[in-house]
């Protein structure tokens, strides 16, 4: 998030898209709901599903799957056409406006209606609400990013925020809501193929030297590595021989699970380090038991870049160990010694090599967290980014064109499928499915299908259906409701027994290498 969570309540307009906020970020959603209820903020929802947040909105735009660039360009078209943009901000803080204006020229509300199904007048209305608000915040999640054009979708939202002067403004911002407790931290810590900690590129001689000195090694690799979504195919091709997986369950979370399984089975050696014997761990050659969050000390960095303490409350079961201890022990056996008495010592090393974390220490985090960048021991942290200027100087407006999803319905697979989480389970269910209450509240997988589609298939609410894509098939209970539009169905992906990701598409965004999990084509039939 460019802005802190508390800012959401200060916004006068909130555009929520590709985020089922009340179910997936329930506590954060309260900030938006309170802003609407008590401070007259106007919520605009752009989502293919009638998510609970629609109830709190003044306008709901239901786009067809994978048409986000089109409706965002449509809003930008109206804002430029009606001169509702922030001229001073555009002039002094951004580049690329002319190209953007040229590109969105053809995205008239009528043209956009044809692509997205959103009525032209709603595009006009959304543009006016957003542009005229004193501060307008954008909240998005995987509904925006998990597309072959995920990067373009995000750039479009950034365009919208920048031309209205909402980046660097209190109550504004471009705010991706992170879906996992420490996905921000994993990125910050260099858990990415192209960067060391704090996004310092690996393909840089100075950084190489810096880390060689810090770590007391020579010969660090300057060639960026593979993303997770490319490692699996590389395993299939025999290029990747060994994979070490920590706390991840691709056998439920990855697109096209059957293919993912074939990839993992192709490996010479698979190590899985986890707290449970997950679907993925079952494929491993060696499984290493680790401690969970309640059993260890450390820090997480949340979606607003706030670094917060994690504290040990109970002992781990049996011989389970901290994940860092396991890796340190393994490194020692491979001839590299690391010495840390406690996670605090590791954090001190992180602060030494990471400019954005260098002012942070456990002592400072004792009562409350700190937002990075925090470049010095007296620096108060940075809740809001890009206030006076962008980190890179001027904000770049990217002119982007809409492209259709990789897979579209046809005669053989006539329905669009989209996937997501619901409120009662978390991701692959490894953790939440150990709580009876949560299982009682959401015991099994279901397919959301509209009354008209269900009728057409002769399916009644609660009956079992087979859902099939080019990659696989699952059997699941039909839930007849009006959440989606006719021709589109929805599956939660939590359930290994009816895994939505057996069906999903592995097509990738060419830049971010994120798979198009949010759109694929399926057929549906009643089971005998």
């Amino acid at each position, binding site marked *: 998030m460019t802005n802190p969570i508390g800012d959401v309540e200060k916004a006068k307009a909130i555009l929520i898209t590709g985020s089922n906020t009340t179910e997936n970020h329930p506590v954060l959603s309260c900030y938006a709901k309170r802003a609407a209820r008590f401070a007259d903020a106007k919520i605009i929802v752009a989502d293919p599903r009638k998510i609970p947040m629609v109830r709190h909105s003044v306008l709901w735009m239901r786009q067809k799957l994978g048409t986000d660039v089109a409706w965002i360009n449509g809003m930008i078209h109206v804002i430029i056409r009606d001169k509702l943009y922030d001229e001073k901000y555009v002039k002094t803080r951004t580049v690329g406006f002319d190209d953007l204006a040229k590109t969105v020229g053809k995205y008239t509300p009528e043209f956009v209606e044809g692509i997205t199904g959103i009525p032209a007048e709603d595009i006009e209305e959304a543009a006016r609400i957003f542009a005229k608000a004193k501060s307008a915040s954008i909240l998005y999640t995987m509904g925006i990013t998990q597309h072959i054009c995920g990067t373009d979708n995000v750039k479009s939202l950034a365009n919208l925020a920048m031309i209205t002067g909402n980046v660097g403004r209190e109550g504004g911002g471009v705010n991706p809501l992170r879906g996992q407790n420490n996905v921000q931290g994993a*990125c910050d810590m260099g*858990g990415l193929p192209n960067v060391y900690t704090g996004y310092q590129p690996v393909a840089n001689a100075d950084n190489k030297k810096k880390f060689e000195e810090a770590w007391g090694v020579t010969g660090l*690799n300057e060639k960026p590595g593979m993303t997770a979504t490319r490692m699996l195919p590389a395993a299939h091709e025999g290029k*990747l021989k060994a994979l070490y997986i920590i706390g991840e369950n691709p056998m439920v979370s990855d697109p096209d699970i059957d293919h993912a399984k074939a990839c993992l089975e192709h490996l010479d050696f698979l190590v899985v380090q986890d707290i449970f014997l997950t679907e993925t761990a079952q494929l491993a050659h060696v499984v290493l038991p680790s401690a969970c969050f309640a*059993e260890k000390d450390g820090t*997480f960095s949340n979606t607003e870049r706030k670094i917060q303490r994690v504290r040990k*409350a109970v002992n781990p*079961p049996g011989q389970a160990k901290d994940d860092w201890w396991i890796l340190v022990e*393994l490194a020692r056996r491979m001839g590299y010694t690391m010495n840390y008495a406690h996670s605090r010592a590791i954090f001190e090393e992180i602060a030494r090599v990471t400019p954005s974390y260098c002012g942070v220490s456990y002592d400072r985090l004792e009562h409350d967290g700190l937002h990075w960048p925090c470049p010095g021991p007296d620096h108060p942290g940075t809740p809001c980014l890009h206030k006076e200027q962008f980190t890179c100087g001027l904000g770049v407006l990217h002119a982007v064109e809409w492209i259709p999803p990789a897979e579209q319905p046809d005669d053989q697979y006539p329905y669009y499928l989209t996937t997501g989480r619901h409120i009662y389970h978390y991701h692959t269910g490894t953790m939440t499915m150990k709580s*009876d209450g949560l299982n009682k509240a959401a015991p099994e997988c279901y397919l959301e299908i509209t009354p008209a589609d269900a009728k057409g298939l002769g399916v009644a609410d609660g009956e079992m259906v087979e859902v099939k894509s080019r990659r696989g098939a699952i059997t699941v209970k039909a839930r007849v409701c009006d959440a989606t539009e006719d021709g589109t169905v929805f599956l939660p992906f939590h359930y290994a027994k009816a895994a939505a990701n057996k069906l999903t598409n592995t097509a990738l965004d060419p830049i971010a290498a994120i798979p198009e999990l949010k759109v694929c084509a399926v057929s549906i039939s009643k089971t005998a």
Partner: protein
Amino acid sequence: MSSQSILINGRTAPFETGESILDAAKKIGIEIPTLCFLKRAMPTGVCGICAVEVEGASDLVTACNTPASQGMVIRTESPKVVARRRSLIKKLLSSGNHNCAVCGTGSGEWERFQALVQGRDNAQELCPVWGDCELQNLAFLYQVQGENTPEPAQEFPKVEINPFIVRDYARCIGCGRCAQACNSVQVNDAINYVPGEAKAGEFPLANEDCVFCGECIQACPVGALVEKNARYTVRPWETKKVRTTCSYCGVGCQLWLHIKDNRVVKVTGVEEVGPNWGSLCVKGRFGFHFVGHEQRLTKPLIKENGKFREASWDEALDLVAKKLGEIRDAHGSDAFGLLTSARVTNEENYIAQKFARAVIKTNNVDHCARL
């Protein structure tokens, strides 16, 4: 710096326009007792416990929703105030199964009442929140006992149909904090309650809008709303509380883990800091059973002939080190990949990428950010 002030118990209390007497008192460390007052919601004053005496006013006023105004002279514990509070507390104690502070009106009355309440709860103890109750605290503070001994009756139903929360109307004092927590803080609109108007039993939980966030439990000052799986099993003095960060989504809510015998038995939100200021969701509050679950991995496992067998750390780590070394030597560093995790700590992610880069010499490091 504020130029406005009032006088509370003889001390000067500065205030800003719009602040209540309660706000001004808090700032100079004067505690005024409250029951219906809930932070982050509009005060209603319905319970009347925060009554204070304002010089020149004809009656006592409620501190929570009376704005401070320049020159007010206030007494927070005058005989008149104390008498009012005692009478309010007595009324509340006598309104239901508040059996912690009840004296019988005749022989056997008290025992009969306790037996009834305990029988109804199927419990050996007095109350599910004994020792963690604001009404009980006030009863002791002001030395009040309830007088009559009401019979647990049909008009005080106990609702326990939902999987997470028990609502016992017999212990409800009608303060409305649950409704405020639900409607003003979480904005879920699942509790339909107008302070002072609704009768017990008329503001049920678990309707279609309830998503079991448990904000109402945390807001309840008494034992009317309790976590189902902590009811009569978790006593505050038997547990230690450890503050940490939630491990589900990326919001990073601050949690208190309540620990008893090396197990997490209850979770509450930390009210003093953001991002959640005490709020939690159903997963954060009720999804903690995985922590000490019987299916947790407890020993390293090595697969032999398609089956796992337990191994020592030494054996497992030696094997992994040997295999990874062989693969690196035979196929090069980039034949190795490491998926670190968005679920583990910063420190662990740092060590994971350091391991891949410094030990194996590959940048094939990623995690589940894209999935």
